[in-house]
């Protein structure tokens, strides 16, 4: 295919609404807020899996935290009728992602697996994607981070260590998906089975609040729970069509 043909074809593809119906896999996640206890196991799991740097107290004091998945907290009411809500926020891998349109070098785009790709080695650090993202889940490398020896021996060889001036964010643990695909191929070119691949956060969640899978597979856990009556999307009114769906918390006393 000549460049022009390819350009035209992909243009057509990306012009049609809901083009992601043609996804090979459409990875998605549901988060059950009624199960989530805010224990932050997912946060550390993510840190360990994805070589997320230890930014240090000074940087944190300047608001330069790095958590691909973070847990936001929202108080309601006053003492004694007070309650706290937790909500884990990670890259929503929106099917209509604002960040993808703005990157001048296409360092972030949507791939055939329904993933919102962040390409570290293409990023030039305009940081516009972070501004455009309404979920605030993109984190920027303000420095070249270093690990006090021998902490660097923990780094995951399947994930690159980002250099300064690069944007980074949750990848749905693409290295694990890659691995699973690899196994599936060896196993007679089959597709990935449901539950065969789990991001670090889903894998470790002690209350099993997080479910991950292929939205295209009607039988998968995630498709089922996406059709739960409690399902909703954070900031759904912006119509960014996130791949991450939340299940409402249940207020037993709200009736």
């Amino acid at each position, binding site marked *: 295919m000549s460049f022009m043909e390819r350009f035209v074809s992909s243009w057509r593809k990306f012009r049609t609404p809901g083009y992601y119906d043609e996804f090979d896999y459409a990875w998605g996640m549901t988060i059950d807020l*009624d199960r989530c206890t805010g224990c932050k196991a997912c946060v550390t799991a993510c840190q360990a899996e994805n070589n997320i740097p230890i930014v240090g107290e000074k940087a944190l004091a300047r608001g330069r935290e790095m958590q691909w998945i973070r847990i936001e907290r929202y108080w309601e009411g006053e*003492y004694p009728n007070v309650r706290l809500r937790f909500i884990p926020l990670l890259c929503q891998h929106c099917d209509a992602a604002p960040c993808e349109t703005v990157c001048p070098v296409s360092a972030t785009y949507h791939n055939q697996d329904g993933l919102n790709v962040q390409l570290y080695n293409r990023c030039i650090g305009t940081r516009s994607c972070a501004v455009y993202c309404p979920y605030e889940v993109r984190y920027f490398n303000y420095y070249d981070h270093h690990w006090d020896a021998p902490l660097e021996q923990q780094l995951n060889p399947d994930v690159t260590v980002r250099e300064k001036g690069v944007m980074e964010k949750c990848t749905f643990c693409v290295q694990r998906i890659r691995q699973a695909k690899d196994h599936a191929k060896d196993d007679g070119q089959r597709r990935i089975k449901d539950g065969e691949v789990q991001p670090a956060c889903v894998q*470790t969640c002690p209350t099993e609040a997080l479910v991950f899978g292929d939205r295209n597979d009607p039988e998968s856990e995630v498709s089922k729970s*996406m059709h739960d009556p409690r399902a909703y*999307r954070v900031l759904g009114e912006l119509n960014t069509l996130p791949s991450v769906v939340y299940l409402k918390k249940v207020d037993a006393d709200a009736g």
Partner: protein
Amino acid sequence: MSKVDRREFLKLVGAGGVGAGAGFMLAESLKHPTEFLIPYPVPPEEFSPGIATWYNSVCGMCPAGCGISVRTREGRAKKIEGNPSHPVNQGRLCALGQAGLQVLYNPDRVTAPMLQHGDRGSDAFIQTTWEDGLSSVAEHLATARDSGIYFLSQGVRGHLAMLLELFMGELGSEHLLHHDFAHPHSLYAANSRLFGEDHLPYYDIRNTRYLLSFGADYLNNWLSPVHHSLGFGHSRQGNGATRGRFVQIEPKMSISGVAADEWVPARPGTEGILALGLAHRIVAGSAYAGDDVDDWAAALAPYTADRVAEQSGVPAETIARLADEFAGAEPGLAIGGGAAGDHTNGVDTLVAVNALNYLAGNIGKPGGVVFNPGPVTGGPANKRQANYQAMQDLAENALRGEIDVLIVNNTNPLFTLPRAAGLSEALEAIPLVVSLSSFVDETTAMADVILPSHTYLESWGDDMPQPGVGFSVGAISQPVVSPLYNTRATGDIILGLAGKLGLNQALPWTSMEDCLKDGWRQIFTRGSAETENFDAFWRDVLVSGVWGENRRRTDAIVIDKRVIDDIGVAEPEFSGERDEYPFILHPYLSTAMYDGRGANLPWMQELPDPMSSIVYGSWVEINPTSAGEMGLEDGDLVRITSEHGSIEAPVLIFPAIMPDVVAMPIGQGHDALGRYARNRGANPIQILAPITASASGSLAASATRVSVSATGRRAAPVKTGGVSRQLGRDIVRSTGGDATPDGHDARLNSIPIKVKSV
């Protein structure tokens, strides 16, 4: 064109030369740096480059004893995950467990045996060999009086515990102490009083429909948080129609309080009274129909709703409602612990909570309290646990010069005991202090000899989780990486000492691995394993990382009449006068650092506290109204003073805490333990009063009154969060109890998620 003269020519040559040089260097600078391919002289069996190998082991970060499986690449541990086949955590793991890697790779580890060459605490350690280190300690042990040898270990189980027993037994010393700050002494005492058992029952949260928790932060750090979380999740949404209801009774909202459907603030120390109030209602309301009902009625007579309401500050109607809901729940479960047990009346409180279970008929059935079989093998878990009384005796004996040698194993009493215990002075009086710790923590800094032990990821060991899960479980902890430094497993150090002292008859093993295999032969001979020979069995256990046998207890429990008769909870006593010290200090184990052992892990330091999103430092939580009265704002540095000292911490205005209580997380405030922990925050344990729960002798950690005074300075803690109010933006949505669909369906987006035929 003008012809080139000589000067011109020279210029040209110069220009050309410079250009060429520049070009050359440019090309040179663009070259890739040299990298090497280092082959193994002999390739190891287990792994090959580029392919991950997984080892199953046991988590050593807290006493819960979860099973872990560690991912290694090229012989280096890369990631810790839960072991799916381990019944306690079933593949899940908490944040602290994940951070175990940073214990292994911590830059501040002790890399070799050390001898203190200055005065104690001068940190003038000089490296030595194992040979010298061991023999010098062995000499002292040989010359010391038998009763003068003390061994203070962290709470260990399985064969390491047994090994310590044997070792100390051979040395003829009774003074083997396990010390964990968070060990639930009162809970053990309460259980043995009511049920006559010295090990904990299994609280079946998974199948319960109604959980009544008296101060137990069961989702965060009480007993076995990960297992409880699994149960919680399942009880909430895993059961189809019926959704478990969770009620949390505590003065300061904990993680479990957040997760609960109802948070009931009760005055500190009155949880037991409240429990008896519920019991009174149950008995009076004839929801209980046992034949000993009259005894109960008599015993519970004084705990009328009004009196209990008056004492606990919980409205009478709430008490009535809770009692009826609890009695009506099929099945229900009441658990008590944490702060509720850390009062002068702690044991009575927990007895009362168990009584509640008994009266509601939750004993010995799914969704209630299930009894564990006794430990399969290894040393006794609880009886060696040193309560505060024992630790204080240790200090006094030391001052009386009765201690010749103190061996400390991976526990840090100088941090986890109040300053009032006088332990630091006591250590001064001990001629030889040996530490087996992997880090220079506060206690190790005071040692004369450091014989650094492996981290749990480098050493052999085994564990029988306490509390069990209703049936016998054992797990092997195997080295997942070859040791990073010149350290040794605790067991091997003990065996080494034994060898030097000629105790080989009693401790015949050459290494901890032998000792384990020997022990596990017995387990193999229990016959529940269907493998043919021991080696196969051993291999299986190593592969799966866990062993269990499906023998459950079915014995019914009868409670002695005398126990029923003297059931009752006294008013809690506090140290300090109310008018001088208006607040009750409520210290709690922080999510990230547990009892302070997590403070040297950068991941844990950078893990925002779930409720406050504060990192790197400690804070004190104050109710908005009382803060308003004192004119305090977020970030004001205040001085918290008890009768036994004072600390400083910034204020955090916290909506979910009782007005006369101030809460502080435990974990920060180290003055040792390496670069990440040192000189950061304050340690509330330091100022606790040395009063104990009368019946168990354990420290009444929540029974200290304090005064809070502004210092005029500000020290706003570092937070990752912004404004934690929704401002009507409907970010975290919730639905009514019956979870009916109300139009907010993920499918109802402008572009529906179509489904591709697979």
